[in-house]
């Protein structure tokens, strides 16, 4: 019961603090694609894979008092920081979900910037396409982000590293 909430809390606990809703979305999407059993469904939106279920679940956790959301103004927009509250930690201690090696992957992802994670998640979204088609998708759909070929290569390498990390463990 409330397992999906617990999984999400575990992801945030494992990451310590996640700064930015976009980053949170991309981290969970990438973790799900790599192997972890998150249930939230993602669709492609203007800015890449996005899950309305995930947004709602985060709102629920904030309303429950299990997640702390700090809103801060940054330039022309707001940015949100997420951490687990003490009540959240207590709930999680009683409802822990077995997800081995999640912490390792999420800590790694949390160290990357949102722009790079956006690229990684976009590449993963099109993993059913040939590599040259994926590159074309990145260049056309993410025109405004001006990703370079080098960054795309790094994204592929990063996906491989994450997958190896999960397999090795």
């Amino acid at each position: 019961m409330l397992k999906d909430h617990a999984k999400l809390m575990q992801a945030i606990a494992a990451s310590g603090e996640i700064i930015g809703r976009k980053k949170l979305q991309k981290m969970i999407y990438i973790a799900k694609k790599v192997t972890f059993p998150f249930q939230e469904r993602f669709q492609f939106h203007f800015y890449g894979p996005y899950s309305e279920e995930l947004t709602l679940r985060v709102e629920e956790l904030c309303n429950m008092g299990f997640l702390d959301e700090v809103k801060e103004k940054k330039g022309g927009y707001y940015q949100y920081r997420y951490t687990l509250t003490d009540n959240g930690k207590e709930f999680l201690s009683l409802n822990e979900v077995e997800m081995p090696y999640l912490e390792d992957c999420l800590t790694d992802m949390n160290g990357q910037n949102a722009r790079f994670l956006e690229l990684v998640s976009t590449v993963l979204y099109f993993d059913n396409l040939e590599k040259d088609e994926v590159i074309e998708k990145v260049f056309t759909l993410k025109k405004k982000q001006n990703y370079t070929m080098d960054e795309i290569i790094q994204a592929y390498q990063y996906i491989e590293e994450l997958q190896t990390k999960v397999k090795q463990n």
Partner: protein
Amino acid sequence: MHYSEQKLTEEKVFKDPVHRYVHVRDQVIWDLIGTKEFQRLRRIKQLGTTFLTFHGAEHSRFNHSLGVYEIIRRIVDDVFDDRPKWNKEDRLLSLCAGLLHDLGHGPFSHSFEKVFDLDHEHFTQEIILGNTEVNDVLTKVEPDFPKRVAEVIGKTSANKIVISLISSQIDADRMDYLQRDAYFTGVSYGQFDMERILRVMRPHEDQVVIKQTGMHAVEDYIMSRYQMYWQVYFHPVTRSAEVILTKILHRVKELYQKGYQFKQEPTHFTAFFENTLTLEDYLKLDESILFYYFQVWQDEADEILSDLCLRFVNRNLFKYVEFDPAKEYKKLAELSTLFEKAGINPDYYLVVDSSSDLPYDFYRPGEEEERLPIHLLMKSGEIRELSRESEIVDAISGKRRTDHKLYFPEDMLKDDKTKKNIKKQIRMLLDMRS
């Protein structure tokens, strides 16, 4: 004349309770409507289990798909035609994508997809790109036309204007379902001035924007979304039916995996259980098939499966209490133990249902480029996000209300023939009158 430009000798019209008439002149559209994959949508209800709460809600995805097509037809033929930033060559692409956007939906897709980890959007792509009648029609337009339509529906096309007609925070899909669902459920919310909104929509760079003068009509539309969510889509009785339906599917899957001998083999489900699903298997399933199984499973020896099917078919739904997970999660664990002691399997009969289980989305102003918000085109030519201009929208798109309920079979808990004392304890915990 090329197939893409062929018109019917006489315009066809479908009578429609929401838009009065749905007009079809294009041969391509007429042919798509006639395909077996599109006709299948007649056998899938738009609102799933809502008919058990609002008896009028028997309308199908077929009705809705025609409605979305008609709204797009009015936009591209009457509003956008001859506008400087609109490419007339996108007309047929927009119409086809609107008509076919829900093609991959299965029966009671919300529960079904959850249990079998499926995604109707994936099947929409498969139907459009696979060996189907729909694909045959689209390919006649141009060999890459199916791919272009699929990319618009999947929101992965570079043509963002066409995407935003079908899928954005103010799109033909929502404008149709809000009005249609309000009409068929009989509720009075869900009304807004669509004609006005259509008139003030403008293609602008890579999105459709709304002229500032149309802001109040859009406010009504946003309010309508808000009201419909709480009053119709998230109705607690509908959610109860959904909970039972989901549990039926879980139970049948569990039984199959344990090697249970069904009196009536669940042939239509085998591919779902064994992960060998093909498009052909998927398309064979519709609501009439599901109801057939719910009927025959009532006679199964497995008491849980039989009971849940009886409940669903005869509308003997679970009761509910408000549940606050933050304060009551320990109580939930206690209840779960007591249910087990009472011989009632908590996995099937004690269910928490949260608002995030049904993500009909609310309007969001868009933070950090998460999703594209609704933009107003100001007189100065500047683009402004809606909630910054509208106090009403700002008020309802701020801190969100969330909701959790705990569902259980009241009749079982009141049946004191067995485990009387334990059931009494459960009733006290649930604040039920004994």
